[in-house]
């Protein structure tokens, strides 16, 4: 880039690079918190683009969406508008793992999010490619675009998704490219490298989209949505939409033979592609090779939207050449005559090693440079959005010298996500799963508002409307619990008849309804017959009451574990600590700790390569440091 073409393009408090799911949350957060914000994107037509599957939510991810909502983010609101099918997963498995999942109309999602961004007063939206982050004295000062525009900024949030040095792979064919036929961003990657930021190379893949009219859904299993629809956002009480179905079909021996016969044409198996892909999203050739005992694999056929004929073929992602794709797709029942509209491809991209970030998502060694989303090695729209929101909030907290928003593992899935990324790093695109959360029973999707609305209020993203609604709900829950404790069910004929009816043991003495609700057979709904004075409550309220009462024993157990956890989290490690002076630590532990710079003993214990023995040494050292300090006083 020649210097003479540079021009002064403007001055902003915050510049957000990228307009995907992370960028949108980040920019909306900073703008809403009063910062003059610029959102730079390579294409205005790709704002909040769902580049892969047409779903929002799912296990763990549905939790993230609700948390984003409770904190005052945007994703849940838009997802509710774009919803064309709703399912509550894991209904048979208990409230901690109930997960909302929606089929979303991709175009509606994009259009509606774009509109919200355009209407946001403090937010400018511009098309342009960022090519260089300008840093002076370890502090960001601005960003340069490909066309020479120099934007001054106090903080920058990088949300580049899979664009950095993106490369598309389809069999023997590979070329530079971003997702969905868009351009890649090559220069910014180099700029980051020059700032001494460690980059990694990840890959991910997406299946083909086929024309609805070319497939036969009548031979497939139909998958309808659940009713009634439960909205993602706590601000919505219901969604009226006629739901569209998805379909399920299977691969077969013939499909597998085609794949096996063409393995050498896959760049992964040919060894041309060495980047690391996600284990939870294996290509079909991976599945066939690794699980060769399975004679069929599931293929889900999902609409990409209401006004498009494109169908997303979930379970069928591949890096095999287009020619082979056509053969193998057509070997599947119902897809015999399918016309592929967009072929499957894998994309390889640069991301940063997220252990270079603080838990605020700010880079450890450059002030006010934040990263969020797939560029941090994560995967998924919801994971990206969660990080975008946290990065946005913390950029503002930084600029205003306010206390940052750091959610810990016992407070939110977002906390688990960020802690995992910055503490352990990741060797593959990181996906949220409920099994990554230690305190799952407490971190439910149904209580995300109870956990996080106050925090969102503190940082300033929760408006009065949301806050009042939340306070009212909180009060109703509390009142109802108090009431249930006071109402006594006595062993009257009526009560005994009710218990007999539901197959429960009869009462010997009077018990409160609250205690009665702990019995597995008793539900809030079925005990209405013996609870005559019951007030009429919104469903989320009585459901919350029921869950809290029914699982109280287990929840208390988790609270005890959380107490233990908080003790270690509370033991802060001074920033000035020099791990190389602690001779008792093994070399690996010394190196890892020096790199990660954990802020507490709790975080230190999660750094990979730090053994329990190392932790003992560290604890003893900190204790000695503390004592020496006290002695000096």
């Amino acid at each position, binding site marked *: 880039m020649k210097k003479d073409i540079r021009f002064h393009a403007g001055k902003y408090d915050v510049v957000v690079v990228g307009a995907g799911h992370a960028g949108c949350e980040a920019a909306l957060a900073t703008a809403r918190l009063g910062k003059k914000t610029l959102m730079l994107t390579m294409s205005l037509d790709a704002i909040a683009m769902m580049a*892969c*599957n047409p779903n929002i939510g799912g*296990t*763990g991810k549905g939790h993230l969406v609700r948390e984003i909502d409770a904190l005052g983010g945007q994703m849940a609101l838009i997802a509710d508008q774009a919803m064309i099918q709703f399912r509550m*997963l*894991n209904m048979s*498995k*208990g*409230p*901690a*793992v109930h*997960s909302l999942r929606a089929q979303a109309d991709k175009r509606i999602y994009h259009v509606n999010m774009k509109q919200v961004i355009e209407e946001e007063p403090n937010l400018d939206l511009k098309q342009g490619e960022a090519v260089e982050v300008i840093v002076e004295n370890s502090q960001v000062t601005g960003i340069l675009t490909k066309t020479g525009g120099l934007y001054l900024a106090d903080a920058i949030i990088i949300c580049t998704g899979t664009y950095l040095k993106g490369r598309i792979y389809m069999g023997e064919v590979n070329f530079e490219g971003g997702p969905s036929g868009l351009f890649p961003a090559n220069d910014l990657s180099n700029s980051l490298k020059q700032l001494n930021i460690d980059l990694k190379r990840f890959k991910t893949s997406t*299946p083909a989209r086929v024309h609805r009219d070319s497939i036969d859904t009548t031979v497939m299993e139909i998958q309808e949505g659940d009713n009634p629809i439960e909205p993602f956002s706590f601000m919505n009480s219901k969604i009226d939409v006629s739901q569209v179905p998805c379909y399920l079909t299977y691969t077969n021996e013939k499909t597998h033979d085609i794949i096996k016969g063409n393995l050498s044409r896959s760049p992964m198996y040919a060894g041309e592609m060495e980047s690391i892909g*996600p*284990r*939870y*999203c*294996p290509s079909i050739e991976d*599945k066939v090779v*690794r*699980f060769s005992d*399975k004679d069929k*694999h*599931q293929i*889900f056929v999902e609409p990409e939207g209401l006004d498009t004929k494109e169908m997303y073929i*979930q*379970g069928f*992602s591949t890096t095999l050449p287009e020619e082979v794709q056509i053969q193998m797709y057509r070997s599947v029942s119902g897809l015999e005559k399918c016309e592929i509209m967009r072929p499957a491809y894998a994309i390889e991209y640069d991301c940063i090693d997220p252990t270079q970030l603080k838990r605020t998502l700010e880079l450890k060694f450059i002030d006010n440079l934040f990263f969020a989303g797939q560029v941090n090695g994560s995967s998924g729209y919801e994971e990206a959005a969660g990080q975008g929101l946290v990065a946005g909030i913390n950029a503002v907290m930084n600029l205003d010298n306010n206390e940052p928003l750091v959610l810990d593992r016992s407070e939110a899935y977002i906390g688990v996500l960020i802690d995992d990324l910055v503490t352990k790093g990741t060797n593959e695109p990181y996906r949220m*799963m*409920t*099994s*990554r959360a*230690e305190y*799952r*029973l407490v971190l439910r999707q149904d209580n995300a508002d109870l956990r996080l609305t106050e925090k969102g209020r503190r940082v300033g993203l929760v408006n009065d409307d949301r806050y009042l609604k939340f306070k009212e709900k909180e009060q109703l829950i509390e009142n109802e619990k108090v009431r249930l404790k006071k109402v006594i069910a006595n062993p009257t004929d009526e009560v005994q008849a009710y218990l007999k009816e539901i197959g429960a043991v009869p009462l010997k003495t009077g018990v409160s309804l609250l205690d009665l609700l702990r019995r*597995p057979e008793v539900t809030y709904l079925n005990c209405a017959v013996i609870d005559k004075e019951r007030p009429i409550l919104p469903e989320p309220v009585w459901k919350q009451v029921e869950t809290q009462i029914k*699982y109280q024993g*287990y929840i208390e*157990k*988790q609270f005890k*574990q959380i107490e233990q956890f908080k003790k270690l989290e509370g033991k802060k490690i001074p920033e000035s600590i020099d791990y190389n*002076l*602690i*001779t*008792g*630590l*093994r070399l690996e532990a010394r190196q890892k700790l020096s790199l990660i710079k954990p802020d507490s003993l709790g975080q230190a214990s999660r750094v*990979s390569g730090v*053994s*329990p*023995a*190392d932790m*003992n*040494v560290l604890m*003893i*050292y900190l204790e*000695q440091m503390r004592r020496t300090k006290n002695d000096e006083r």
Partner: protein
Amino acid sequence: MDRDTIGAVATSVGIAGIGIVRVSGDQAIGSVSNIFKSKKGQSLDMLSNRKIHYGWIVEEDGKIIDEVLVVPMKRPYTYTKEDVVEIHCHGGIVSVERILKKLLDQGVRLAERGEFTKRAFLNGRIDLSQAEAVMDLVSAKTKNSFQLSMNQLQGRLSQALNDIRKQLVDMLAHIEVNIDFPEYDEEEVTREHLLNISREIESKIFRLIETSEVGMIHREGIKTLILGKPNVGKSSLMNYLLNENRAIVTDIPGTTRDTIEEFVNLAGVPLKIIDTAGIRQTEDIVEKIGVEKALHKIDEADLILVVFDGSRYLEEEDLMIMEKIKDKKALYLLNKTDLEEKISFDSIPYIKDVLIRISIINNEGLMAIEKEVKKLFLKASINVEEDAVVNNIRHKNLLLKAKSAIKDVIQSIEDQQTIDCIEVDIMETLEYLGEITGDAVREDLVDKIFSDFCIGK
């Protein structure tokens, strides 16, 4: 972290051919050098590392304290990862004590119990469970106990725990895959399956806890109390067991006034024997204290050897003793079978059957004691050479917690609780077991999910 230089007598105090004094720390070589005169005339730091050097420990005036072999070992390849020197001198108390005294004069600090191992641990040479095993090894009382510690060092307990942990992780991975990937056609884990596995795990943990009784006995010895009215031969019995005349033995009743503790190795079972003043209703105040002490000790004892005098009639004191110990593990020994038998147990038939007839003077019937002790304490089913044995209180406590957690799992399954609740207790079980070996849980699990199940879009 700078640490001072520590020293201690490394061998056990008592009658032995050689004694070893060990020093560790930055000043280890320097301080020994100051008091050591090598035959070759060189100072210690000039002599080759990790070799044995002959010479003398001497006073400032050159007077020889002892003739010694000295081994200097430079860091980091030593037990503590610090400079270590071992001084091999003559055995017994005098020599080691005098050498240690000289070292303390040089500024070496007397090591606390277990401090060498603590340093090995702090310096990252060994992990926590190994450190604990070493501590057990140091205080091992008999060969079997030594074997137990060696097994633990080599990870037999770890192996047994890992087997259980693997079962738990498999079970969890299956549950988690059902939870996190509900759309996929992985088989749903059934409650029956969970229940069966949980019960199996419970019994495995239970068995490990069971072995802890044996394990702990091997480390700490079976607290054995010798009880009997005065002059029935208690001290003679103890002396026989000790093979030395430690306690005073006379014909005057009431000579042993206090309790004395000794360790003996009886057919591989370590006994910590407490001799007591004879139980006698007495007015003698000193003796009375001894008697009360003895009765008090009954509660703590693991084994009681009751001695009767066959040449005397059964007396009230005998009956009192039997009343006091009726809930304890006991051997009933009828001594003095060499004399005319006057005692009769017709009134207490249960004793008649288990009575062991001995004559300590004539060395008769004593093998039967060994046999009975073995029968009582070495459960035939636990083989010290083969089984994983728990012989550490911390481990035992964690196992007890794990057992209670897996019991909760079983209870929750039986109560038809939802899977996310059951999982809380499974995870807890896993975490307690992991605390023993020091392994992380979550990463195992995620790896397991992806290696065992075919999932993903």
